[in-house]
């Protein structure tokens, strides 16, 4: 049903409607105002998924009722994959401000060892 075309967009069809889920900074601001704290270890993945999912409708489908939003989420496959994709999309709103392509030549490579 759902297919993740790129890191910053999720596309799918539901009940004859095409949905393109993505975030903009306004959506993230509103999500935080509603109590969402990105990267907070206290919240369970399901609560995080609910909030990320609802927030992703703001940019292109803000008039969609919360009932429909929940209904679609219930029917989505691979919820962990979906959560990961939504987290990546959310991170893009922040990373795009922070990364600096100009310093690639001087960037320090690193690896993690367990």
């Amino acid at each position, binding site marked *: 049903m759902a297919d993740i075309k790129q890191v*910053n967009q999720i596309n799918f069809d539901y009940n004859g409607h095409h949905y393109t889920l*993505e*975030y*903009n*900074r*306004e959506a*993230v*601001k509103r999500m*935080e*105002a509603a109590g969402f*704290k*990105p990267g907070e270890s206290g919240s369970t993945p399901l609560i995080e998924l609910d909030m990320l999912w609802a927030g992703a409708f703001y*940019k292109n489908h803000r008039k969609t009722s919360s009932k429909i939003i929940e209904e679609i989420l219930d029917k989505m496959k691979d919820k962990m994959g979906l959560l990961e994709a939504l987290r990546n999309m959310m991170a*893009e*709103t*922040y990373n*795009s*401000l922070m*990364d600096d*392509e*100009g310093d690639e030549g001087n960037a320090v490579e690193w690896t993690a060892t367990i």
Partner: protein
Amino acid sequence: MDGDDLSEAEPPTLAEIFTEAFPYYLSMGMTYEEFWHGAPSLVRAYRKAYDMKRYERNQEMWMQGRYIFEALRCAPLLVGFPEKGYKPPSGAGYPEMPYPLSEREAQEREIERENENTKRFIAQLEAESKRNLEKAKKEAVKDGREYD
């Protein structure tokens, strides 16, 4: 203690980070709509375009300084107390054309210059050959020979 204050300090929210970054992008020409409601990755294109603009401006300023320097170098004013009839050394004149902006433009000008030299050389050869021909004709007439 200062250390305790730091450990208790709340990290900034994303909204705060966005709000702080917003004027920076406004200064680059990004609109409110683009920053808050547009695609998040758009800021990368604005940063790149801004870097390109700064590079271009830096080049222009450097070039302008170089032209001013060339203009001043041609004037006896900078030579201190020039002797009467002072002329700037050859090659110190103001450039006849703007400086090439790229390696490619420099190469094109070099090719153009070589073509001009070749044309001049051919014209010289033709003129010399014509002169030799005229000379040979005149000598033939003088010696009473027939010239083909």
